[in-house]
């Protein structure tokens, strides 16, 4: 049970007013949120400092132009912010942010983290499919009824972590039948309570978990299972992987867009992993031919080794892939299995060490002894 600020307005309006309140009361210096770019519905993640600008804010636009966690991290890479800033972001973005902080890629202090129960987002490409506007209207219907909105990104349709446990403030949308009339703002932490003091609306207590949310979770889990199975009907194996990554341009856009891939210069873009002519000549002697540029699968599996255990399945990799490789689904599948293995949910707890940089003496004791 936690305190909930109820505003008698539709969610979108209600939240905008709440944000407005935070800015005007100078409780926060600025607000990170999605902002309208143009009439096609394109949005950008922006730092809004003037209440006036909030009229363009669309915190709930079902698009992810960038993983906000990456932005918040970069914003505080040099040092922590010294005055409060509110950041509206999605559960997976929040978890990504926390994973980055664990790697000292940023600072949590003075951020007021506002998130929402998440209905998922559409592929960025749908901006150009002409049907985007109507899609969005259907979107809210399905969110209300705690259903999987059609045409959202596969990874969103299969995401069971749509309740942002770590946020200070959670806007409830999933399963809120009356979200045109009422806006429920869950004050999830002391900090949240503090900042909400003085905001218009009445306080009640409610549970963020409802029958609806657990139904949706179940649907999404089924969806996920289905996707994973579909991905590798009769297992992957080298043949299947070659097929999946056949079109890969080695543009490494996936790693650039990935919030967990925080390296300034990716190891796989460094000279260490380039090849000399003779190595190709050796290889064509052995195989009769070699793909150029080589190392497509080495790159993707290598990236898995580096980040999959912290993968939050935010789907950015798939979104930026120019050749529609289901990168996100594959990485989620690998990530999920690793996370189960190490009993680790990325972004759940800032104190939990990243499995990649730690060990337990008494774990996996059967290994190596045969």
């Amino acid at each position, binding site marked *: 049970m936690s305190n909930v600020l109820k505003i008698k307005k539709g969610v979108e309006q209600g939240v905008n007013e709440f944000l407005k309140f935070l800015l005007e009361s100078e409780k926060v210096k600025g607000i990170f949120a999605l902002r309208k770019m143009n009439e096609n519905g394109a949005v950008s993640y922006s730092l809004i400092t003037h209440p006036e600008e909030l009229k363009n804010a669309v915190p709930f636009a079902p698009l992810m132009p960038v993983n906000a966690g990456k932005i918040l991290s970069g914003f505080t890479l040099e040092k922590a912010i010294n005055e409060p800033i509110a950041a509206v972001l999605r559960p997976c973005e929040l978890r990504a942010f926390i994973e980055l902080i664990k790697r000292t890629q940023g600072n949590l202090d003075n951020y007021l983290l506002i998130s929402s129960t998440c209905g998922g987002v559409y592929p960025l490409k749908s901006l150009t499919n002409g049907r985007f506007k109507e899609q969005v209207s259907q979107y809210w219907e399905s969110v209300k009824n705690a259903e999987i909105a059609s045409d959202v990104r596969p990874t969103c349709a299969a995401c069971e972590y749509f309740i942002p446990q770590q946020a200070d403030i959670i806007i409830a949308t999933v399963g809120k039948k009356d979200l045109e009339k009422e806006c429920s703002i869950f004050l999830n932490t002391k900090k949240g309570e503090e900042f909400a003091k003085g905001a218009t609306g009445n306080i009640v207590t409610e549970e963020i978990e409802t029958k609806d949310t657990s139904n949706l979770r179940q649907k999404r889990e089924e969806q996920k299972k289905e996707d994973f199975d579909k991905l590798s009907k009769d297992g992957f194996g080298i043949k299947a992987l070659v097929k999946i990554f056949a079109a890969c341009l080695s543009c490494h856009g996936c790693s650039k867009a990935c919030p967990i891939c925080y*390296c*300034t210069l990716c190891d796989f873009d460094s000279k260490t992993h380039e090849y000399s002519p003779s190595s190709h000549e050796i290889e064509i002697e052995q195989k009769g031919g070699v793909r150029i540029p080589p190392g497509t699968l080495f790159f993707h599996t290598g990236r898995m080794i580096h980040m999959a255990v912290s993968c939050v399945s935010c789907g950015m990799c798939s979104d930026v892939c120019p050749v529609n490789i289901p990168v996100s689904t594959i990485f989620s599948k690998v990530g999920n299995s690793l996370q189960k293995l190490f009993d680790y949910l990325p972004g759940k707890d800032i104190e939990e*060490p990243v499995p*990649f940089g730690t060990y337990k003496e008494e774990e996996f004791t059967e290994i190596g002894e045969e």
Partner: protein
Amino acid sequence: MNEKIGVYVCECGPNISDRIEIDRVIEKISSVEGVKVVKKFGLLCSNDGKKYLADEIKKEELTHLVVAACSPREHEQTFMNVCLEAGLNPYLFQLINIREQCAWMISDKEEATRMAIKYILAGISRVTLHRPLLKKELDIISDVLVIGGGISGIEASLSLAGKNRKVYLVEKKESIGGMVKNFSALLPYQGSNLAVIEEKIKQVQNNENIEVLTSSEVEDVLGFLGNFEAVIKSNGDGSVKKEIKIGAVVVATGFSLFNLKDTPQYGYGKIENVLDALEFEKMSASGKILLKNGKPPKSVALIHCVGREEKGYCSKVCCLYSIKFALHLQDKLPVVDVTEFYSDLCLPEKADQDYFEEAKKKGIRFIRADEFEVKDKAGKISVEYKVAGGKKDSIAVDMAILAPAIVPSEDTSKLAEILNLPLDETGFFKEVHEMLDPISTPIEGVYVAGCALGPKNIPESIIQSQAASGKILSSLIPGKKIEPEVKVSEIKEEFCTGCQMCLSVCFYGAISFDEHKGISVVNEAICRGCGSCVGSCPSGAIRSKHFTYPQLYREVLQALR
């Protein structure tokens, strides 16, 4: 390529030449790009061999040397010295193990030869990537920090100070002397008389090479052999902080006693006149062995091995001091009946057996028993027990003296963290090897002596303290320099993202974080070159010298040809 690589195959007497067709190897290798000479020699590790090799390096003006012979575990250093002599950087050399790995392990000569060629090719392609590494010498500080003012600490301080080393002796209590100070006496073969100990304490106090810091604790220790920095907080409350530079550390924090509250069946703390060994030492030292009611005890039970089962080890010294107690009781009291209960007798030293016999002669009863229940029966203490046969029995006594197990002193684990030393399953400090390296720790320059390693008698503690001093005296000679490992990790700043993953996998604290630059930094003097950090760095910013990705990878490539 303008390398001039010399490849020398050692016949190792018949060891290699019988099992590998060396001439085929030579023929195959000579065609390799960059290779200037390929030759064989009877026994390269012999004096002639070494001379031959050195001459070759000079004559052929080799830029790289590859020796195909035995395991690097055996002769890598030998040949590195040869390089040094011949003016070739020893890290531009690679020793290929064709004896153990090929000649001796692969039965088919054909196959062995093929494999040998593979290994050598790998070595050649690897050696061209080697970078000359330079041993750099570091000045050392020969001062020493001794932690713990008990007999071990005292002994260590004296033997070090005796060789003109400045010693900081840090003691938690307000005075040095440790547990021994409370004893009523020593064992006969130790000279019974405590004077020897008091003498040592005096010597410490009068020795101007020793700075005694009482009521003090070690707060922090950073650094490496020859160059440690330590923070000592004094005044107990830590109000005074002192920073000292030392070259080595001796940990002699001794022991404390098993907490008798954990074995309520012995009635300690609940029943009057049930004492633990230390309480009795004090009582007997004071000369007044009395019950609470002021009368001397007429009957006393000495119970050994209290907590032995719980702890799972024998504390070694209890039997003997209990015998000592019994004899004291007999001396000091006109009429006293003494019974000793033990589960196993531990009489390790030469003199111990006689001491035990003497006690028996003097009428002290020894009963092997367990499952004790100590109860209060109408002002008397009833000791119930089960004897070896399984029969239950009991006696009534005026006084019961318990011999609790010896356990690690309270802040052992805290200190272990400060010095990042491992502890064993019993909670004592863990030596590198009980038999082969009994007082060293994984941290070079940090030694442990005495009961900090486990139960010991005084002589053993003194031996270890002297051993530790010996190690230090021989490794830290004033004015001499030390050469830290050079095959260490390095961080390429432009690649480092500052995620600090490497910090979490380094056990030596060799990597620190430069807040200003926002990157990790390796302290090459501390780094041991294990390379664990490399695998933890997704940006590939860390390289372990002489075992870089490219160097190792070229070996992989050859393996897969």
